[in-house]
């Protein structure tokens, strides 16, 4: 018996070159296309969020998953943040002979900047990637299509609930993280020195004003919104099969984190106008 072996089809040799000018142009075009689509997605969110019916059950379930389930991670990072920041800041303040300023200084940097931003980044890593991967796999396995054919509005059920939960849960997490970080700072202060709780928090709240706390909390709503929206956008518009799931999760974290910094920058500019 002879085996007739025939190789059919031609093997194309693909040259790996620097991307040509055309490809750069395509990337720029893709970028703007993405921005347009994201803008439309955002408008759609605002349109659907006010329209009944309201998916309360799913919203509460997501808030539990997004908020409560992120708490341990946020608590640990918060504690370490406070502790480490205190230990690191002490030598400089000692040099200036301003050691007694330590609680106040650490508190202000945590509440104004480090607490919200670090927590939002952790949130983007955990929640953003989770949403991105979950929605992408729902898309790939046709679960979103299945919802649509059953006469439901999957955008409302899936996207609106998650974005809302992320928007409302992140500020709560940030407040918790700030509080735990201050406790970490208290322990940090007491590693070399002896300040009792009462005195520590007296020093903290003497320097911490409303204008520190309020804008810092407001911006976290925007952080949460951006992380949730970008995670949903990346997942909901995923294609390319299972490979797309990983890509969506990845893009959700990268773009979500970037968005947090950009919003932070804008927020600082705006607050400095008023205060």
């Amino acid at each position, binding site marked *: 018996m002879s085996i007739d072996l025939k190789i059919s089809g031609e093997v194309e040799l693909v040259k790996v070159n620097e991307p040509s000018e055309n490809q750069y142009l395509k990337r720029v075009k893709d970028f703007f296309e993405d921005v347009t689509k994201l803008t439309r997605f955002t408008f759609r969110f605002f349109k659907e969020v006010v329209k009944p019916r309201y998916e309360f059950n799913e919203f509460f379930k997501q808030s539990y998953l997004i908020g409560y389930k992120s708490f341990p991670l946020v608590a640990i990072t918060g504690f370490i943040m406070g502790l480490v920041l205190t230990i690191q800041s002490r030598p400089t303040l000692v040099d200036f002979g301003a050691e007694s300023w330590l609680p106040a200084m650490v508190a202000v940097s945590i509440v104004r900047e480090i607490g919200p931003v670090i927590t939002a980044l952790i949130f983007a890593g955990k929640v953003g990637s989770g949403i991105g991967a*979950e929605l992408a*796999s*729902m898309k790939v*396995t*046709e*679960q979103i*299509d*299945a*919802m*649509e*054919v*059953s*006469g*439901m*509005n999957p955008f409302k059920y899936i996207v609106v609930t998650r974005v809302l939960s992320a928007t409302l849960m992140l500020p709560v997490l940030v407040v918790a993280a700030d509080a735990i970080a201050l406790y970490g700072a208290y322990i940090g202060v007491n590693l070399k020195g002896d300040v009792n709780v009462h005195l520590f928090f007296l020093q903290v709240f003497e320097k911490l004003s409303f204008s520190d706390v309020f804008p810092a909390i407001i911006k976290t709503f925007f952080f949460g919104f951006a992380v949730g929206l970008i995670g949903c956008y990346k997942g909901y518009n995923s294609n390319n099969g299972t490979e797309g799931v990983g890509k969506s999760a990845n893009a959700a974290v990268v773009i979500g984190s970037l968005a947090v910094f950009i919003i932070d920058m804008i927020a600082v500019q705006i607050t400095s106008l008023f205060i």
Partner: protein
Amino acid sequence: MENIVAEISRLKKSFGRNDVLKDINLKIEKGKNLVVCGKSGSGKSVLIKCLVGLIEPDDGKIILFGKNISDLNDDELNLLRKKIGFLFQSAALYDSMTVRENLEFPLRDVKLKSKDEIDTLVLEALKNVGLENAIDKMPSELSGGMRKRVGLARALILKPEIILYDEPTTGLDPITSKEISQLILDVQKKYNTASIIITHDVGCARITANRMIIIKDGASVTEGTFKELSESKDKWVNSFFK
């Protein structure tokens, strides 16, 4: 005709340079099963997704319950979709929900249903596909064939007027396949539903088909009863029945 619940004419759809559907014409009548055959990748799944508006066709007309679906807004389309059951090729069960919640999901908007009524409906639907023991399992705990059957139960639970089955018996053993084919037939008889059944399973086609249609090169080439097509002189058509 009064009896026609859905009609597709001159349907065209391409993905990039891949012309999947070029000229599809078909009608489904109330109380009749239409079996659709065709090679893998010939666009059968795309066809039924176009029918319910999941995929937007490039050209052609789709009439559902006498309405052209391209003229409808989202809310109107959703109302029509509630009268249609859809079994996905991949079953498409909701991973984050138990089997029970999967089946309850299409019932969410149906008013006037008490908890008891819903429970009875769910249990009855699962009994039909022989899975009443799996009611509290998660989809990830089910085998491929079981998922398919849960998907089928979910598609049937609202007693829709049109049911679209995408390969209902693929991946099932011959005995279960036969039971499912029988179930499809029972549903048709009992509720006078119209269906499209996509299948490669000759046994299933024999049991369920009132009419059959074969897709080749993106067009609906042959149409007839199971008997006519299985005795066809055309070699290519005939090869489906071997």
